[in-house]
């Protein structure tokens, strides 16, 4: 036990002595946490729209007015032909081309139906998805609008009785204003903690290998597990500090106060850091130089970041991919963070992701310890 104490003293001194490391470990992540959620705004509000109005009727005018008034769309302009509109889409000047065909109003009145054409640039899937969704819901609204007006207008012949209608009343729980930052900040914090704590422990051990100082420790009677604990605990502490500062930043800058219990959050954090430090240790045992450790770490971080549900929902992945993702500790921790911070989920609600993380952590650490050799 006293050995561990001395080792910890050594590690903390080494870390705290290096100012450059402290600033990259704590300050850079916090700056990113302040700036990046501003960038991660998916709430689609600026979809640019080009309109081909071949009808020029009061009906088509009213439809365009309704679309621009919704706040989701920005009218880039009108073109005379559909081909020209598509050209604007091709040049990225517009996201959606909407064509109102000739005789739109007349056919609606006389024949009761008329088509509308929209072409959406679908390279950016989310934008296309949401843009199309918004546009069709506006058109639906508009449709029932004109129907009502037409039916209530005194000049029209009496209509058959209005058909029965089912309507929906939607409400959004946990984030009624659909604030995208509430969704992103917890996840970005996880990404930053991952890059910081877990990978630093790998670099730290490999640095001793590369400099040869690990030999000095290997020839002492220090037991393997004390050495490993001595390497892991400082980064566990740093991870907790960074996480707490991150929560503070989230509260001050974005007004995000976790709805759930902080104790639940910190318990999950410690389990998560245990798993990720295990990964760091494992990487360290497999690499001889810092460059190797870095490229391995970079490999994992990159795939974790993209696949763990920070940016795209894990639910919409195919089953085999979901199976792979369930072995990534960050995917579970991001899920827990969002559940606890936004919905106030308790310990019983997060049993599954928490146990999954603990099992992965146990597996990684066992593997790493078995693979760690005091003799080279």
């Amino acid at each position: 036990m006293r050995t561990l104490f001395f080792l910890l003293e050594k590690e903390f001194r080494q870390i705290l002595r290096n100012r450059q490391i402290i600033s990259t470990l704590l300050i850079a992540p916090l700056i990113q946490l302040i700036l990046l959620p501003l960038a991660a705004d998916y709430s689609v509000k600026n979809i640019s729209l080009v309109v081909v109005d071949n009808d020029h009727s009061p009906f088509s005018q009213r439809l365009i007015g309704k679309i621009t008034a919704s706040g989701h769309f920005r009218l880039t302009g009108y073109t005379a032909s559909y081909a020209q509109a598509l050209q604007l889409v091709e040049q990225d000047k517009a996201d959606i081309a909407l064509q109102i065909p000739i005789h739109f109003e007349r056919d609606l009145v006389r024949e009761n139906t008329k088509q509308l054409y929209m072409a959406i640039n679908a390279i950016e899937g989310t934008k296309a998805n949401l843009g199309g969704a918004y546009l069709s819901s506006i058109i639906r609204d508009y449709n029932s609008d004109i129907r009502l007006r037409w039916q209530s207008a005194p000049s029209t012949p009496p209509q058959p009785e209005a058909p029965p209608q089912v309507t929906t009343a939607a409400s959004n729980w946990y984030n009624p204003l659909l604030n995208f930052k509430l969704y992103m900040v917890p996840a970005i914090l996880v990404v930053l903690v991952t890059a910081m704590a877990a990978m630093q422990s790998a670099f730290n051990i490999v640095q001793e290998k590369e400099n040869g100082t690990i030999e000095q420790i290997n020839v002492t009677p220090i037991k393997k597990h004390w050495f490993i604990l001595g390497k892991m605990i400082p980064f566990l502490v740093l991870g907790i500090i960074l996480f707490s500062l991150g929560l503070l930043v989230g509260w001050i800058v974005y007004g995000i106060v976790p709805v759930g219990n902080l104790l639940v959050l910190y318990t999950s954090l410690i389990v998560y850091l245990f798993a990720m430090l295990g990964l760091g240790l494992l990487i360290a045992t497999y690499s001889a130089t810092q460059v190797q450790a870095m490229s391995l770490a970079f490999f994992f971080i990159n795939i974790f970041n993209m696949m763990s549900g920070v940016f795209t929902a894990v639910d919409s992945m195919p089953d085999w991919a979901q199976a792979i993702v369930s072995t990534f500790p960050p995917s579970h921790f991001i899920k827990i963070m969002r559940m606890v911070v936004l919905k106030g989920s308790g310990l019983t609600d997060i049993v599954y992701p928490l146990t999954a993380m603990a099992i992965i952590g146990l597996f990684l650490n066992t593997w790493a310890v078995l693979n760690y050799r005091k003799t080279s």
Partner: protein
Amino acid sequence: MRQLLTFIRKEFLHVFRDRKTLLMLFGLPIAQIVLFGFALSNEIKNSSIAIVDYSKDATTTNIIGKIAASNYFDIQRSLASADQLQSAFKKGNIKMAVIFPANFGSDLEHTGRSTIQVIADASDPNQATTITNYLDQVINDYNAGLAKTTGQSMQILPETQLLYNPELRGAPNFVPGVMALVLMLVCTMMTSVSIVKEKELGTMEILLVSPFKPIYIIISKLAPNLLISILNLFIILILSYAFLDLPVKGSLLLLVSCSILFILTSLSIGLLLSINAKTQQAAMMGSLMGMMLPTMLLTGFLFPIENMPLLLQWLSNIVPSRWYFIIVKRVMLKGLGPASVWKETLILTGMCLLLFAISLRKFKIRLQ
């Protein structure tokens, strides 16, 4: 000239000797293209929902059948009462709840109007918006069916066409993004580390006291990374053609030359990073922490740039990958020619020259 060639050979030997790193450098793009290409999708389907039916009549059964038939929804279960919703949401089992009030069918019949209550888990705002809209579509179809029997008037039928990517796959958006990300990070990180390593190990002194020109040191450091990046580029292009069905629609020559320009820009950034870093660790953290997230977010392949606050939009202009991403999208996916990307190419060229000039000037030929 012979001197330079010898040094380039030395650098290549360094790189090729380190098999593990080499494996990672080539493994990363392959794994990313395959994983992201097949797994990432923006389409939201099979969302788990819960149904609370207080009415249990023919109408609600009919509507529930329609909801179940659409592949957007996966009815997880039917709850007896809305009180259980809170806990189901908290467990994360369901994304949305659809509640039919009592006497739903008879209300519809007698008053001509019934309302379904829809509660979405908006902790993911976009998913909530999208699936609420999907449900509206299902209900709208149902209404149209009702109207057929009584005669609905004035029906607008929107016809939507999805250009370039009709299945809403993630790949067309992510492949250019991955190209930008991988090339950028491999170049900056590997370059900065390989220079700082010489400083840390003390071998830089030997290089500097030799009659070898500093510019040669820089060139020989950049050469292997340039080659690796170009190889990576071709691997990505071949993979996305073979597996993801994403051929280069435009001119291959144009795409490759723009990519080389981008690689050179990233190499210059790596050079610049190496000047200020004292240890390999600092160089790595600088390129990892300082470059990765900003590149991911400000390139525009994850989040639309025009949504960002002005400060960040302005900031995104100085991220080279942003311009490269636009070029790749236009040339590779849309098949446009040089006329449509000359502006972006010019910006990249400017950045490349500027960064290289700065790092050349600042490259220290003395250690202290």
